């Protein structure tokens, strides 16, 4: 993993200030959605070899949830955006 993550609020910070929540591509279904929709959300992951989007939280900084787009093979970080700005 890259040593630095560029937080949109705090600037370039060491990645140890952040924690990983997981895959940002799955969207939480409505409460009354089907069992299959919930199964897909809770358990199933694309797990791409290459470009991926993940939720990271800047726990030792602004505490915002961020979407980090990066490569799972080279560990290059392409972009970091605020989790609420989609």
């Amino acid at each position, binding site marked *: 993993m890259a*040593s630095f993550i560029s937080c949109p609020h705090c600037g370039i910070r060491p990645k140890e200030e952040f924690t*990983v929540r*997981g895959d940002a591509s799955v969207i939480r279904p409505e409460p009354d959605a089907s069992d299959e929709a919930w199964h897909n959300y809770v358990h199933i992951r694309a*797990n791409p070899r290459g470009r991926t989007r993940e939720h990271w939280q800047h726990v030792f900084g602004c505490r915002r949830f961020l979407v980090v787009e990066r490569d799972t*093979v080279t560990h290059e970080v392409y972009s970091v955006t605020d989790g609420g700005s989609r």
Partner: protein
Amino acid sequence: MTFAPACRYANVRENHGTVKGMRYSAFALVKQALQGNRGWTPAWREPQPKPHYDVIIVGGGGHGLATAYYLAKEFGVKNIAVLEKGYLGSGNVGRNTTIVRSNYLLPGNEPFYEFSLKLWEGLGQDLNYNVMLSQRGIINLFHSDADRDAHIRRGNAMWMEGVPAELLDRETLKKMMPFLNFDHARFPIMGGLLQKRAGTARHDAVAWGFARGADRHGVDLIQHCEVTGIRRENGVVVGVETSRGFIGCGKLGLAAAGNTSVVGQMAGLKLPIESHVLQAFVTEGLKPCIDHVITYGAGHFYISQSDKGGLVFGAEIDGYSSYAQRGGLATVEHVMEEGVTMIPGLSRVRVLRSWAGVMDMSMDGSPIISRTDIDNLYLNCGWCYGGFKATPASGFCFAHLIAKGETHPAARFLRLDRFERGYPIDEHGAGPQPNLH
């Protein structure tokens, strides 16, 4: 739920077909020595792929090779190939900390791992290859009253499956391993749970032993042959596209570990797997000082001493999904800190090497040995960072499933559909969060 003792499954020893090639023995050693060691033959062939096999296993690591070996030896399947994109044993079977144990809590796991340990205990003889199993015992330390109660519960759960476990108090431990940090202010060591039959094995020898055993039973081990696609006709798997052309098959078994999602995607499988990176370390060689496998209860740290004298240790995964077989320095620092907290004397030891492997982390932290919704396609994955100890039983149960079309009793809870049916096997109680298992 009721379970038969796991030892019931371990007494199958039928021999199908003829075994080819040289048999290793003291006699062979002397004979070869007298002939100037010019008569040794390669441990396995390097065959060209045939156009069609009855069974193809994708992945020439410990689990894939073990599957092929048991398919040929125990279940009488002929015409088998193992396809490996690199060289045999180039993945996690050569990257682990070599620990073998069966001290699990949950009834879905414990019989399976005990079956595995039973197979380990006879593996060297069975394979005619020394896997250097050393049953030196594993000790899980605990650090609080609640922690002790949890370990008592685990020990009792093991006894209920017929697996011996012993609770050691602090004074006993002090005599056994005086180098531990017993009086740490925050994590004092109150005792430990001992499984005497646990220990270590020579990891590369396991891969080589299964490879040689499979080859002797006629399995084609095809290295440097990357699977690039899975061909289906009318929904049924009929073969694989590879870097060395199309190879047809009757049944296809995937044992691709960290690359499970990549291979599974070729057949449109959507899997409860995330790939994560786990690091491990070895120090310079020391005189014998750590006699057991020891795990820290206040972290995820585990350590043992190799036969060469190096201290072999590791701890948590890095925490972010990754396919790179290398980890980050922050985790290196964290592992070292954990180690020195548990054994202060480690601070004076120099680390020789570190390495990393890609773990197929499942959503409940437990493995999957299962058929899939696609006919002729079978799946073996989700080993998280516990795959090495499972190698023999994983191969045996996967071979049983592929050959007979039925789940082996020891692996009957390790089905892929347990997630959607609501029966996860969450050994750590961490929930569906792969980087927490």
